[in-house]
């Protein structure tokens, strides 16, 4: 491992933060970027769960260097499935709050506290990160357009008024995490979560977050054309129960 990534971890001290969130990181072939993400997370949070979604690279071995829980899907199921696995695991371990966090370093650890604040005060059951309330770095125009269309689609079909629909940074209270059940294995899970928030009457709000795009994350991330597939999966998922 790179010597510069040797972290000073918080470990399990900080008993004053008993309501520390459980951070769920779904990772698929993220060996190159996962180390830096876990390095940041483990400095501040003691309950981090990495769900290795059937990676064929050294994602699992990278995670083993950090004081985190590592769950391994023996087959690649998709990000939605990996997040649900992490959430179920956290709930099994009496997590009071759950935060979903991308493995590729797009998110800022500092934003987690911004998300947690409405949960701690009881103002919301679910807090959704919004890059359009916050900041983006290196967001391509094409991706911006697709995200805006996603917002419009969500308003029309889910009747949820949000400014950002496919942001992987979100926080859920224990009660909300227990009521949301992700069945969309792949990328349509983000819209499915919004659907379920609406259907189950959960209190939600948005919080500003920063998303940093890089060449690497854009190259590995989903193509803008995947939006069409996501819409298809979501509509079929509504019909098939």
């Amino acid at each position, binding site marked *: 491992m790179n010597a510069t990534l040797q972290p000073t971890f918080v470990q399990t001290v900080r008993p004053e933060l008993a309501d520390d969130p459980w951070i769920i990181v779904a990772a698929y072939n993220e060996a190159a970027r996962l180390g830096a993400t876990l390095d940041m997370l483990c400095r501040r949070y003691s309950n981090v769960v990495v769900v290795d979604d059937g990676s064929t690279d050294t994602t699992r071995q990278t*995670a083993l*260097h950090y004081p985190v*829980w*590592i*769950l391994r899907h023996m087959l690649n199921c998709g990000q939605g499935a990996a997040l649900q*696995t992490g959430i*179920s*695991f956290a709930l099994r371990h009496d997590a009071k709050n759950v935060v979903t966090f991308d493995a590729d370093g797009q998110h800022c650890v500092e934003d987690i506290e911004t998300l947690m604040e409405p949960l701690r005060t009881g103002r919301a059951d679910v807090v959704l990160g919004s890059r359009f309330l916050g900041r983006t770095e290196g967001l391509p125009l094409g991706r911006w357009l697709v995200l805006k269309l996603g917002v419009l689609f969500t308003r029309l079909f889910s009747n949820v008024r949000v400014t950002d629909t496919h942001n992987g940074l979100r926080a859920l209270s224990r009660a909300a995490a227990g009521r949301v059940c992700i069945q969309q294995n792949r990328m349509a899970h983000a819209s499915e979560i919004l659907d379920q928030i609406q259907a189950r009457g959960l209190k939600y709000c948005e919080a500003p977050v920063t998303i940093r795009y890089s060449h690497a994350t854009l190259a590995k991330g989903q193509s803008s054309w995947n939006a069409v597939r996501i819409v298809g999966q979501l509509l079929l998922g509504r019909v098939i129960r």
Partner: protein
Amino acid sequence: MNLFQWLSLSFLALVMLWEIRSYRRSTLPRGFVLARWLVWLLAALAISDPNLLQYVANFIGIGRGADVVLYCFALLFLVVSFYFYSRYVRLQRQVTQIIRHLAMDEAERGDSLRP
């Protein structure tokens, strides 16, 4: 009867005989096997007497007998596609649940490789 009728009816007769023979050993629902046998029977009737299909076409307001077959297949294709997609999604969910169960039961604690 023309050559096509001879060949296709012979083939359908063999298929129906095979269905009867394997009826007792079949693990499929009886209704499903009978429905399949009925499809072969209807196909045999339509081939042996094309006027029968034309009569049906006229009765339901479609011009040609061949169009009845075409429309039926188009509708059947949609139904079958939807059915199999539903089965696929349900199977995928079941597989995911198994994988999730195993992943949670075999959770590892990291830090073991930390120097």
